[in-house]
């Protein structure tokens, strides 16, 4: 297949740079979303944590202990600024990974348009990396979660992330395994079946974790989880669109002969 025609395709470096940039943009925008909609929920959850801690201190008759801002390693304002550092760096990492996946997989993908190929990969990541884990292990606000189980919870979370990505990959393989010329519904059903099979097995095998205290407000828990999901969807949506846009510019100005001579 001579897909690249007589023009030289851009190198990995050019694509990677655009991935990192798209990731930074996506991370910062996800940070804006999280700051606007998520931080009020985090504040409310910390207020509950604080009230519980204070009640315990009073019950024990111990006046010397507090979790106030003064003795915290990073103040609440610092953590709100650090939110952008976290989402920015995380976005850069995901952008680089998406660009690398694109570089390695582009020739194997049966999507003609480059922009669609990028969006397809970003959509697959959103499904496997965010939505599948979200259903099994929904994110929790501060004041929820037993510190002594953090290792167990981290391992379980990483396991479901891997299972989610494998399920997406299996869905693609299954839909391709259907004989050429078969109806669209048959290929979709094969893909969906493989995806569901792996996800359900993962859901059943991995331990259930529920550490939400009975006293925690359900509406706050719900709205926190929705904003957390919104943050991650924002990140992957913007990342896919931004990398798609940057690559379309790259191909539009790409000149034959020299692949990395593009200045953007």
């Amino acid at each position: 297949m001579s897909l690249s025609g007589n023009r030289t395709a851009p190198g990995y470096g050019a694509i990677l740079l655009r991935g990192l940039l798209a990731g930074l943009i996506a991370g910062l925008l996800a940070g804006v979303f999280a700051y606007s909609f998520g931080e009020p929920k985090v504040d409310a959850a910390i207020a509950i944590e604080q009230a519980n801690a204070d009640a315990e201190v009073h019950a024990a008759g111990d006046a010397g202990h507090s979790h106030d801002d003064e003795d915290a390693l990073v103040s609440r304002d610092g953590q709100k600024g650090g939110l952008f550092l976290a989402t920015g760096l995380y976005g850069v990492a995901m952008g680089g990974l998406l660009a690398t996946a694109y570089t390695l997989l582009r020739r194997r993908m049966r999507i003609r348009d480059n922009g669609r190929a990028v969006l397809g990969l970003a959509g697959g990541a959103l499904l496997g990396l965010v939505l599948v884990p979200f259903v099994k292990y929904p994110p929790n606000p501060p004041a929820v979660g037993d510190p002594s189980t953090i290792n167990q919870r981290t391992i379980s979370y990483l396991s479901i992330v891997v299972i989610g990505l494998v399920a997406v990959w299996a869905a693609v393989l299954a839909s391709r395994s259907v004989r050429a010329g078969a109806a669209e519904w048959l290929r979709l059903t094969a893909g969906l079946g493989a995806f569901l099979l792996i996800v359900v097995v993962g859901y059943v095998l991995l331990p259930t974790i529920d550490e939400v205290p009975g006293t925690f407000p359900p509406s706050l828990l719900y709205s926190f989880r929705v904003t957390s999901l919104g943050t991650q969807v924002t990140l992957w949506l913007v990342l896919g669109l931004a990398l798609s846009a940057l690559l379309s510019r790259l191909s539009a100005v790409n000149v034959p002969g020299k692949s990395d001579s593009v200045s953007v």
Partner: protein
Amino acid sequence: MPKIEAARPLITPAVSARTLWIAAAVVAGLLLLAYLVAFDQGAVSRSGMYLHELMHDGRHLLGVPCH
């Protein structure tokens, strides 16, 4: 902006063995970066809990398990 689909070349970089090695190194570096944001508690970054606490809110809102 340009809507000329047919004339646009497909971006399909050739993947050489060298590119594969570079990609592997880049992926390792990016996973380390994601680890520092999402899971590190000072063990790798040698910053004590400072980075962990600084990125606390981001971790919660990115859906990663936390204390």
